[in-house]
């Protein structure tokens, strides 16, 4: 059964339709890239999945439950952790406070303190730089460190699915490499399902997995990223010659 199912989702801002009847599914343990040029509707789709902007039409299911129109905090509590575009660290809070925020939703459960502490250790093992600066202000971290912080914060929620909007935004290529290296390792280690939005398909082709190509609010291609890298349809979609 699919973990995430997006069925005919349409998103409008006033009279502007940003996403038109988009449908795809994501299976447990899968890695899915959503790529496409600026204005393709990728971020709008992510905001709809996270419950920030409810879609105008269609439905979204997560773990077999409909989540269309539910509040962001409820969706997060079901195990869907969103890392939005631009990272959104809480700059005035310390790094550790940022991380601990992710565990708040479990604070009513038995033994959460011990689990939160071990989750924190795990994040620190994955990203040692965060441990080094854990009492420092998160706003003072570099872009790459902030990206690691928000991924760590998403892990602290103990999610079934992490959705990340443009992890490479504003990062130097070698830093992006590091971020992806950790993500891939984490996925293998924790059996995470990943949904990653990127503007460029290069990263998807490099990492492998499935890729959806969006343009003008619609899905153009859906298939294996490696195979798509070879096809001409990809170029056509980005540069706009060819039909759609």
């Amino acid at each position, binding site marked *: 059964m699919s973990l995430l199912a997006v069925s005919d989702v349409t998103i409008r801002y006033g009279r502007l339709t940003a996403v038109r009847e988009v449908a795809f599914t994501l299976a447990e343990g899968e890695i899915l890239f959503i790529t496409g040029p600026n204005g393709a509707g990728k971020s709008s789709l992510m905001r709809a999945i*996270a419950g*920030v902007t409810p879609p105008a039409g269609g439905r979204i299911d997560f773990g077999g439950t409909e989540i269309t129109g539910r*509040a*962001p*905090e409820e969706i*997060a*509590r079901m195990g869907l*952790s*969103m890392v*939005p575009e631009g990272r*959104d660290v*809480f*700059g*005035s*809070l310390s790094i550790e*406070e940022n991380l*601990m*925020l*992710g565990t*708040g*939703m479990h*604070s009513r459960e038995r033994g959460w303190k011990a689990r939160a502490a071990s989750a924190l250790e795990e994040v620190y093992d994955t990203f040692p730089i965060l441990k080094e600066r854990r009492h420092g202000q998160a*706003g003072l971290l570099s872009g790459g460190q902030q990206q690691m912080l928000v991924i760590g*914060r998403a892990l602290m*929620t103990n999610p079934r699915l992490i959705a990340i909007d443009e992890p490479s935004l504003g990062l130097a290529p070698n830093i992006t490499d590091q971020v992806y290296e950790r993500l891939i390792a984490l996925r293998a280690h924790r059996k995470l399902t990943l949904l990653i939005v990127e503007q460029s398909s290069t990263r998807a082709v490099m990492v492998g997995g499935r890729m959806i190509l969006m343009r003008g609010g619609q899905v153009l291609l859906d298939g294996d990223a490696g195979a798509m890298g070879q096809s001409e349809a990809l170029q056509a979609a980005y540069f706009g010659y060819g039909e759609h």
Partner: protein
Amino acid sequence: MLQVLFDALSLGSLYALGALGIALIFGVMRLVNFAHGDVIAFSVFALLWPSTDAVAIVFAGQMPWFLLIPFILAVGAGLSVLSEIVVFRRFRHASPATMMIASFALGFVIRYFLLMLFSSRPKSISLLPALSQPVEILGARMPLLQLITILATIVMLFALSVFVRKTRFGLEMRAAAENFTMARMLGVRANRVIMGAFALSGALAGAISIILGAQTGTADIQMGGAVMLMAFIATVIGGLGSLEGAVLAGFLLGAASVVMQTVLPPEARPFRDAFVYGAVILVLLFRPQGLISARGTKERV
């Protein structure tokens, strides 16, 4: 000299508590709550039976102080939370200007409700009369109430700062003040945080009403207005949304008022407030973002 210091601190305490009440709510939902002053007035009137007579018919006011104080704090917090549930919740997606106007409207509703039950005549009450005895400290004579006001404010500010820094709720509130949407995406419940902020703010309004009621010995439906105006100005000077800034600016305003009262020539004293507001304009000209600018200008819920 010492007398001036104590006067400044006690007046500043009122402004600081008021400013904090406004800043707490502004932080989580970008609402400037002009109904805050009327919550202050309402909390005092909660001690009286409804009547339009000049002499107040005391009802809850006869409770011993250890029941009376929690009662007034609870009334303030309760009314404040109720106003969130009934009114402000429906305006969460509205612009800050719309919310501000809604808060004005709510303030009038509360004030006219009091007017209807109690008439507009100020009523004399005797709230915690034991506190009006004078005490002598380091050679300065002042009412015990002034000393207690200052001490209670310090205790409240300290407790609140520990609460905001050390508890999970405080952490969630700070996160929500900076970026509410992101906080929600981490599972922070919007309703809980906002209602918590309203409850704290209302309890602070209750505290102010105890102090004002005891100081003036009257219950007046207008009594929240003057404090509210100064408190609002303090939140702006402090940097809207910054809790530390609101407290700091509240004390500064209190000090400015008291100092001008003493140093201005007697014939200029009736115009003291004009000088205070002039100073406010000067501060804002040089620091338009406030003394301590708050983080998080991102979109609200």
